[in-house]
Every structure is written in C-alpha cells, then in structure tokens.
C-alpha cells in the first residue's frame, strides 16, 4: 500500500518558516523544541490551505491529523512536570519510533475500515423483515393464564365513576356584566324616573356593575337618550332623560 505523506504545507510560524515535513524532521531531531511550536497554528494553516485548494482529501487530512496528534501528545508530555526525564533523554530515533508506531496503528484500522465499508456495500441488498407479531401471539393464552389482577380494582374504578365530579370552583372567576343588559336597565329606570341620582339607583351594585353602568350612560349620551351631570368632583351624579328629538348637552366635571 503506497504511503501518501506528501504534505505540502508551507508554514509561517514564529519559530519556523518553511514546509511542514521539514518542521517535522527538525522537531524530531530536536533542533526546535516542540514546546516552542504552536501546533494549533499549524492545524489552522493546514485547514486554510485545504479550503483554498477547494479539495478535502480526507485520507491525507487524517494522516496529517494523526501526525499532529502525535506531536501534541509528545508536547503535552514535555509540558508535564516530572515527565521530562522520560523525554529529555529521548533520542530523535525514539521519537520517530513513537510516531511511526502511531501511524502504523492508525493505518491498520484505516485499512480495516475500508474493508468493512466494502463489506457493508455488499450486504446492503439483503433486507430483513421487521413486523409486529400477529395479535394472537401478543396475547396470553386462556388455557395458561393465571390471575394477575385484583377484581377489587374494577369495583373501585366503577365506584369512582359513580361519584359525580365536584362542582368546579368558580370563585376565581368574575361574574361578567353585560353592557347590553345595563343599557336596558338604565333605559327602564329612565322610563319611570326622567331624573335620578346615580348613587341612589346603583350605589348598592358592585364596582364592576357600576363601571359598566357608566359605560351604558356614555352610550345613551352618545345616542342622545340621556344627559348627566356632576357638579363637583366625587359628588352626586344626576342623570336626566332627554325627550326624543331634543338634543341635550351634558355637563361633566
């Protein structure tokens, strides 16, 4: 199997300017300490290059990444206090061995993956059935069935159903007051009393009813059926019927 490590990547780093594979061998020969190399920058440059070329050959990319990962691992070992003894003495040849074994291991699974992928293709045509069991097989057989439920459960369930549900609690809901109904109330009052005092007539109603009654009065005023006046702020309101055909003027405070 041909090895494809033609990584044409030109780097422009603080510590190094030149091709990636040169950097690799320099690092391996310990001419530059890995500690000085920004591996993240290398990856970023590599990705940029791939983008510029518009081709992402995964196979090459993965090999590159395996390399960078191995470098990262070496670097992280260098950065760990105490681990240094292991590596300061590490000969370039040893570092190469480390990388080589990592790349060989990866290559084994890459090739196994390819074989699996091919195998997967060859098997895709076989389709299997997936259907639920027929209903008769999903059921217990009468002959072998044993008691699993308590009959009391049924009596209790029926008892629950016999109980009428509690009346829903409506206390949180306001009774609605209809404008139309208030209009007819005010009209019928005006029929009997052409002039009346609002408080005398509606003072005992709740606030909502009183408010809607005011709306009803506004409506009657607009229609020209009634006028009303309040001579002082918060004082009594006098409501007066307007004879049909007569245009009244309301005096409001």
């Amino acid at each position, binding site marked *: 199997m041909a090895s494809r490590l033609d990584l044409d990547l030109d780097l422009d780093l603080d510590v190094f300017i030149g091709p990636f594979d040169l950097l690799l061998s320099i690092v391996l020969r310990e001419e530059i300490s890995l500690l000085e190399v920004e591996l993240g920058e290398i990856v970023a440059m590599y990705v940029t290059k791939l983008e510029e070329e518009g081709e992402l050959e995964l196979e090459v990319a993965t090999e590159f990444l395996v390399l960078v990962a191995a470098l990262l691992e070496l670097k992280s070992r260098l950065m760990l206090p105490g681990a240094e003894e292991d590596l300061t003495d590490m000969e370039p040849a040893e570092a190469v061995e480390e990388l080589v074994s990592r790349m060989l291991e990866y290559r084994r699974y890459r090739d196994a993956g390819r074989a699996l992928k091919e195998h997967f293709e060859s098997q895709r045509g076989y389709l299997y059935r997936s259907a639920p069991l027929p209903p008769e097989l999903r059921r217990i057989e009468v002959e072998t069935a044993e*008691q699993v439920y308590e009959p009391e459960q049924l009596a209790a369930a029926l008892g629950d159903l016999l109980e009428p549900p509690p009346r829903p609690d409506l206390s949180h809901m306001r009774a609605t007051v209809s404008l139309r109904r208030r209009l007819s109330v005010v009209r019928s009052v005006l029929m009997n009393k052409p002039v009346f005092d609002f408080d005398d007539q509606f003072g005992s109603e709740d606030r909502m009813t009183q408010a809607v009654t005011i709306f009803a009065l506004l409506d009657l005023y607009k229609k020209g059926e009634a006028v009303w006046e309040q001579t002082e702020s918060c004082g009594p309101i006098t409501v007066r019927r307007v004879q049909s055909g007569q245009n009244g003027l309301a005096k409001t405070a």
Partner: protein
Amino acid sequence: MTELSPLARRIESLLFLSNQPVTELALAEACEVELAEAEQAIAELEADLAPGRRGLILRRVGGGLALASDPESEAAARRLLSRPRTPPLTQAQAETLAIVAYLQPVARPEIARIRGVSSESAVNSLSERGLIEEAGRSRFGAAIYRTSPLFEKVFGLDGLDALPDPSRFDPTPEDEREIRERLLAAGEQRAEA
C-alpha cells in the same frame, strides 16, 4: 426442487418485506412490469405457497396480498416469541374495563359517555390484550363490547357473578339499571366540567 420464476421471486421478496397487504397493481408497479405479467407470477406464487406446503402461506386479505405464517406453527411461535405482558392497568383502562365488566354488553359511545372522555385508546388496548371483545354492533353501528374468558382468568373470577359488589361505594343499594343511569349522569357532568 423447483425454482420460482424471477418475477415470482421478486414478488415473494416484496410481500416478505411489507407489513401491510399489497395490491397486485402496486406489486406490478414496484417490479416495473405489466399487471397481467404480475398476475401470472402471483398465480405461480400462490400455488407454491398454498396451505400445507411451506411455512408461509400467501393470503388475499384487505384488498391485497400478504404472506402469513402457517397457523400450525402458532404453538411453537408462542413458545419462541410470545412474551405476553400483563402490565398494571392504567386508570383509563381500569375504568373502561369496569364499565364493560359490570354493564356488558355495552356500546363504545356509552363507555365514552360514562367516562366523560373518548375512550378509544383504552378500548383498543384492552381489546388487543384480549380482555374485552366485540359482541356485535348496536342498531347505530357502534361496536358492542363484553369481557372475554381471558378476562375472567386474569382476574381470578369464577364467572361474572363473582365480580365484587360495587354497591359499597354507594350508600343506597341499587339495581344495575339504576347504576347505569347514575353512571351516565355522573359522566355527563364530567364531560361538562
């Protein structure tokens, strides 16, 4: 040993993979052949999969063709595959089952009226589990249900008379008709609420 024609083989494959009956037309279209050609292959397959010849049988059901297992294998299939489940009854299932048990035969709309909610899913699962079964249709075409012999076995009941007396949930002893009326009245209130 005989071999099936390529088209009959293909149709056998399709019926094997489909969970639903398949019409002859759909088979012809999937195989990209004329209907008449498909019909001929189906006839070949039908003869080959006649009852008693193989483990599979070709059946015409629900306007289409379907493969089914030989009914003679049912006992073996039960031993191999069936793990009948008896999970606890949900509240909806218990209520529905109680209505059917005490009031049977009872029509599906009546169950819904008593419970105050549509009871379709509970009825279906009780039916699928074999605890209730259809006992005909009402005048208006609604399914009428009763409990099954399996129901009595799994509740350990020696006949329906052995159902516990529901009257202790009610201060006044009443006959079944009155219970039914009370249930319906309570159900209507539930439906309104």
